[in-house]
């Protein structure tokens, strides 16, 4: 049961390693970006989980409530999500340009074509 109480953190570790593995192992550039996204998302979950206070309510001021969750990590991650979207869009734009220049989005194929000429 001890292990299950940290369920969120297990999810973080699994997602982080999955994402990292996809970034390293996938030759397809689009899939690499998806892996990068999964990797980043795991960090978002890490932050958000750390803001949870057991028994705490949403941080909206009210007479009846004494314990609130910590809203700061959530706000930080809102920024990080925006950054993540920007990174993904720049990455995808690069993939489109790479596809136009090489006719492929496969890393091995691109390396081979560069070696040929």
């Amino acid at each position, binding site marked *: 049961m001890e292990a299950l109480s940290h369920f969120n953190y297990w999810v973080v570790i699994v997602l982080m390693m999955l994402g*990292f593995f996809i970034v390293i192992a996938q030759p397809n550039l689009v899939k690499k970006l998806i892996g990068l996204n999964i990797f980043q998302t795991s960090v978002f979950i890490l932050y958000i989980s750390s803001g949870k206070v057991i028994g705490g309510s949403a941080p909206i001021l009210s007479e009846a409530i004494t314990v609130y969750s910590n809203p700061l*990590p959530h706000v930080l991650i809102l920024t*990080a999500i925006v950054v993540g979207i920007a990174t993904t869009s*720049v990455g995808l734009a*690069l993939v489109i340009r790479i596809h136009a220049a090489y006719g492929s989005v496969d890393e091995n194929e691109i390396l081979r074509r*560069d070696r040929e000429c």
Partner: protein
Amino acid sequence: MLSQLPILPVLVPLLAAPACLLIRRPRSAWLFATAVAAVTFALTVQLFLRVAEDGVLSYALGGWPPPWGIEYRIDSLNALVLLVVTAIAAVVLLGAHGSICREVPADRIGLFYVAFLLCLAGLLGILATGDAFNLFVFLEISSLSTYAMVALGRDRRALVSAFNYLVMGTIGVTFILIGIGFLYMLTGTLNMLDLAQRLPGVGRSYTEFSAYAFIVVGVCLKLALFPLHFWLPGAYTYAPSIVTAFLAATSTKVAVYVLVRFSFTVFRVEFSIMALSLQSLLMTLGLLAIVVGSLVAIYEADIKRAIAYSSVAQIGYLVVGIGLGTVAGLQASLIHLFNHALMKGALFLALTAFIYRLGSSRVKHLANVGHRMPLTTAAFTIAGLSLIGMPGTAGFVSKWYLVMAAIDSGQWWVAALVVMGSLLSIVYIWRVVEIAYFPTLEGGAGSTIDATASGPEAPRLLLCALWILALGNLYFGLFADLPVDTAGRAAATVMEADMP
């Protein structure tokens, strides 16, 4: 106005970037960006003088007092790096117009300057902020605009390099984000000064250890420290030449600053360098970087790529100084940070001029260039000598301090390897100087010269920018007071167990 000084160097380029978007004509966009960089430089000079006079400046963003609000905190350490970055940005932009018109498609030139200003704003933000999360945001602002600028290179390999840089850079920055998250979980604060005060109170834990480990690995990815350097040569080689000159002289320096800030200010030196075996790790990797980077540079056929590998080696020197863990070592690193910006800026600007006239930076195409473009080649030679560490140039001063610092802490072999690195750099610089001035007998040197290139010398403004940096190398080799004193003060401030 003066009370707002700490934030102005960040604010001016950040607001100027979207304004630059409205300017469609390449020439106007360039004039605007150069003016903005010059204003930013003037502001940081002001800031530098204020810090030298009054000590640390603190600025509460939006009037929210730290540690709740975001604090901008300027001490002698970041004042020095701010000065270096803005000076290089202003000088590089001064010479940028001709080369950018040649290397970047006409419809994208306006957008290029937008990305440049954003990158500058991001780098300055990293330096000025005293808030760990704010640092992450600025790191991403500068990184994203860098990817865009690298991708503007003419060669299609620029795209692949930019993509690889994006993947590596994002992983690095995400690692830093994880580290900052752990720090926040431990202490409940993001203000660096507050972190430094609270961390000793929470006791040693694996969380603190992993926070530091994530941050160091992330920063070393951005820094291109030896085994994590694979993105750098590609990105520097295929990016437009002006971009390479700017990045090589500034962005790795800023990453070094982040490493120093986290190792010495946030985590105390007893924890970061002494308690963990980071000292030996940084020293080993730094020395490996010096040797491997220099060796690869010797065998590169393309001089732009060779100088990029030389950057990997020079980053080694910076990291060795930090790894010594002494005030003298840190001082040597900071002096080298200042000088390396001057020499790499000058070297890559000279290459920009070669590429502008000859259309190539391959060693064999540079035959006889010493007679065709005497001023450019002379400046290249001066910067090259500085890179080697000839007495009388800036490079000598920083190598001297680094060797002294190594000997002071009793590490003779480090001093020996640093000197050996200099000997290796003679080889790859001499290769260029030799073929430029004394094109040897091999394979009809005359025929490789591009006959279609018109004027004999580089554009006047580019030459002007190049010589400012080349003369800087000579000036700070003879009168080294400014970098040495400031670096000494910064190192002493940062190394003190408790920040003032």
